[in-house]
């Protein structure tokens, strides 16, 4: 049995080691670094199954928790980073074009080591049960993203994306901190369970408390790309290097949601406050669904389409978060729905970005029309993309379907029929814009006939992801097992 904290320590040490090698190594080719990191991170995923549980600390004094949810999201962070590094390897040749004055393969060391730091931040976020740790780990994630988004220094789109992300990110951090100070001022605590105790024992003025929560919601809404804080998403996603876009849309969203669930947990059970918070969440969910899905309809650029789709999926996740209810059954429970949805979302989004990188490299562009006739150029990649799109659209026998199934089960259970109605319309919209890609791949004739070749490691990763989408779409039990004791946000606090 390994103490859980050692996972984060190992990731941090790996990141520091990579930085040192980058600085002092004589070799120009840094691809070996990425391969090493991939190996070590994969091994850590394996080790995560052998961690010992929480030591018996008073939850009101802890700042770090190693419950099953935390472990689950740590694995999500690790797996995402592994696939992002695989993508970074495939993307390296594109990247060197936009970095000034380097020989091929050089100058990429930071591009491989910064994601590792982000990963450590995401893992801390998954475990954070204290506002201070939440804030610090969030900053670790965001700051490394600032660098990564603007990594292609010679491309103005990337720089523009970097600036936009920096300004909006700093602003949202401000909101978050301000919200935290209000809550701290009212309760005198930063620890979430201590706050929960205070809320249950003392009378707290409702209006300032709500003000604080709303500020925190603004900050987190930015991180998970929820409307009306989503405006940065399309430009940043389109401008950033593609592997980083994938990382942003998966890693940062998963961590954002785990924090959202944890932070809201103490508050939704407080009478007079809980209902209002849920209402605001429901409104955000509805807006996010409508905005994300309807604006995705006319997109012609695939990367931008995925950006809007990422907003859309944030909407479905928010539907689940807003559908907290009193059931502990796993069908109809919001906590399980969010976790399962994120796991499926991870697989399908990473898969579509991975295929995008391979195709964009050969077609010199990432519009939907560059996918024309992919079925003829590379049946394997075409099938992988088909899998990803089916899963994103939510067709049965894919992981994406089970996620949607659970989300809407939670919504029906909670009686949120307005959200369900919006969901029906947006799912239909999703069918259109995801299947447009399928139509391009299978209906259209290719623009050029050259077959697409990809590196063996990418091929392998694509195969694993496509297989996992079908596997978890048919056998959801392994994910459910690792989710046991997931805190449905309200369930637990209501019992407390």
């Amino acid at each position, binding site marked *: 049995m390994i103490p859980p904290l050692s996972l984060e320590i190992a990731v941090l040490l790996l990141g520091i080691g990579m930085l040192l090698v980058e600085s002092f190594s004589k070799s120009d080719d840094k691809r070996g670094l990425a391969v090493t990191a991939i190996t070590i991170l994969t091994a850590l995923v394996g080790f995560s199954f052998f961690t010992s549980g929480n030591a018996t600390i008073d939850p009101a004094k802890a700042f770090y928790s190693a419950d099953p949810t935390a472990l689950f999201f740590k694995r999500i962070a690790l797996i995402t980073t592994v696939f992002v590094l695989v993508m970074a390897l495939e993307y390296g040749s594109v990247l060197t074009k936009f970095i000034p004055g380097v020989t091929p393969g050089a100058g990429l060391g930071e591009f491989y080591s910064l994601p590792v730091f982000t990963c450590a931040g995401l893992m801390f976020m998954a475990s954070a049960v204290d506002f201070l740790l939440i804030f610090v780990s969030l900053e670790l994630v965001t700051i490394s993203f600032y660098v990564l988004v603007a990594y292609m220094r010679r491309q103005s789109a990337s720089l523009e994306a970097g600036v936009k992300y920096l300004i909006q990110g700093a602003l949202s951090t401000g909101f978050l901190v301000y919200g935290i100070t209000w809550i701290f001022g009212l309760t005198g605590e930063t620890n979430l369970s201590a706050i929960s105790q205070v809320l249950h024992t003392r009378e707290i003025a409702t209006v300032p408390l709500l003000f604080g929560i709303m500020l925190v919601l603004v900050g987190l809404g930015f991180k998970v790309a929820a409307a009306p804080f989503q405006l940065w998403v399309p430009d940043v996603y389109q401008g950033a290097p593609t592997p980083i876009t994938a990382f942003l849309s998966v890693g940062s969203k998963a961590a954002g949601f785990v924090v959202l669930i944890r932070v809201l947990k103490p508050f939704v059970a407080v009478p007079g406050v809980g209902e209002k918070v849920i209402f605001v969440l429901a409104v955000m969910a509805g807006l996010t669904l409508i905005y994300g899905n309807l604006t995705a309809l006319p997109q012609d650029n695939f990367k931008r389409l995925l950006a809007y789709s990422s907003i859309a999926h944030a909407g479905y996740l928010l539907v689940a978060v807003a559908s907290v209810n009193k059931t502990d059954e796993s069908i109809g429970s919001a906590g399980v729905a969010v976790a399962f949805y994120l796991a499926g979302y991870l697989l399908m989004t990473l898969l579509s970005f991975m295929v995008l990188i391979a195709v964009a490299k050969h077609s010199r562009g990432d519009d939907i029309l560059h996918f024309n006739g992919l079925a003829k150029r590379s049946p394997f990649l075409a099938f992988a993309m088909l899998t990803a799109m089916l899963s994103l659209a939510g067709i049965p026998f894919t992981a994406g379907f089970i996620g949607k199934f659970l989300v809407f089960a939670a919504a029906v259970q909670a009686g949120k029929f307005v959200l369900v109605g919006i969901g029906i319309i947006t799912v239909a919209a999703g069918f259109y814009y995801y299947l447009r890609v*399928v139509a391009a791949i299978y209906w259209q004739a290719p623009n050029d006939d050259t077959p697409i070749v990809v590196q063996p490691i990418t091929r392998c990763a694509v195969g694993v992801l496509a297989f996992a989408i079908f596997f978890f779409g048919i*056998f959801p039990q392994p994910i459910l097992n690792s989710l046991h004791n997931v805190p449905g946000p309200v369930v637990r606090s209501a019992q407390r």
Partner: protein
Amino acid sequence: MLNLIVFIPLLAAIAILLGAPARKTALGAAVAGFVLSLLAFLSYDKAQGGFQFLSSHSIAPEWKLNYAVGADGLSLLMLLLTGIVTLAAIWVTPKIEKRENLFYACVLFIAAGAAGAFASVDLFFFYAFHELALIPTFLLIGIWGSGERHTAAWKITIYLGLGSFVLLIGLLDLYLAIPEASRTFSLIELQRLAAEGIIPAAAQSRPYFLLLIGFGTLISLFPFHSWAPTAYASAPTPAAMLHAGVLKKFGLYGLIRIALPLLPEGAKVWTDVLLVLLVGNIIYIGLVTIAQKKLDLLLGYSSVMHMGYIFLGIAAFNVVGVSGAALLMFAHGLSIAALFAMAGMLREKNPTLSLNGFGGVARSMPWLAFAFGLAAFASIGLPGFANFASELAVFFGAFRPAAGLSEANFQLATVFALWGVVISAVYMLRAYRAIFMGEPGKDTTSWIDPVKMMRWPVTLLLALLLIAGFAPRVFLAYVQPSVQALLPK
């Protein structure tokens, strides 16, 4: 046995995608599927009744979710229909010019989806298998279709996607309306619970409405029908046969299997609305069908129209009506598949299928004229064909609906439905006259009948229609006990 029926086409499709010879593998799988479904049909122990050939594998113990197959008389009839139509559809497929492997794989996926849905006794897989057909249809129409194929493919996919999502919400609502302790996905368990009246009457109306809209969209219930005619007109022949013949029956099967037993009170609330809609199917769509000038659209609309009769039988809520509806599902599946198969043969001669582009074809293609005549008569509902026997049962059932339903409304609807028979006679006979009778058209004299090999599938479909028409009892003996068990006492 049922596992084989579901997995043979599925595995064959995967093998074809991986490079097995397309037509041979597909035909082999179709023959195997047909023989197995016939065997299952014949070896079903009617004296014992209930669900047989059960087998179950646990998928998610935490949710009590199982992959479980089993069949009673009703599902066996539907599986038999799937087997026959799949065989006929693959058999009549002409030479595919481009991407033959993908084509046959898609057709087999549709067949597997239909077979899986009818064989499942688990709510989750019942739903999921049906969706297996969605994307293959999208590809089949989009790549190999004719005419406005892209529009048609988008329309059917979005409509059916939307419909099945409403259906999913309805099923969830139904599932969550069951008290937490006894929640289950097993259809057999649900049927048992239904007998105990597990869902309170007040909570039945909303899920039934959602199911009616969801299933209704899949069945092309008026006014959610507009995807069907264009899709069938543009789809390649085997896709049209399978979709109109088999897949559309999924929604009706679902209504009988799930909505009627579990939500009887909800059904009663919405019966009058359903009556209006189904009369819309029969009369409005019937008149639209008369106005069609192309054979493929005419057949597409006629298949939408005939759904009205089946709805009428289901709405009547008594054993006569519902078993008539079930038999009509079988009969309609066979007749529309035969008609689409022959429309496909005519399309090879005259790609537009415009009715005024034919004329006097009976002289050059006597076999086709004869077979098309039989199928058209069956579709109209003339005595001697299964359609007649089952429509008669539907009308009898609807004239005396179950207790608690308004008899006057039903009798009015039945009168409208009877006029529908006249309407279908008008459009079918007009089409027949335009194609096969009269002065020979531009180059119809040089056409020849399809080779003997290609006649077999149509002959098989027509033979079964005649058998079921002369001896409906053989099939009703399967259906009636199942329906009896499903309807509330």
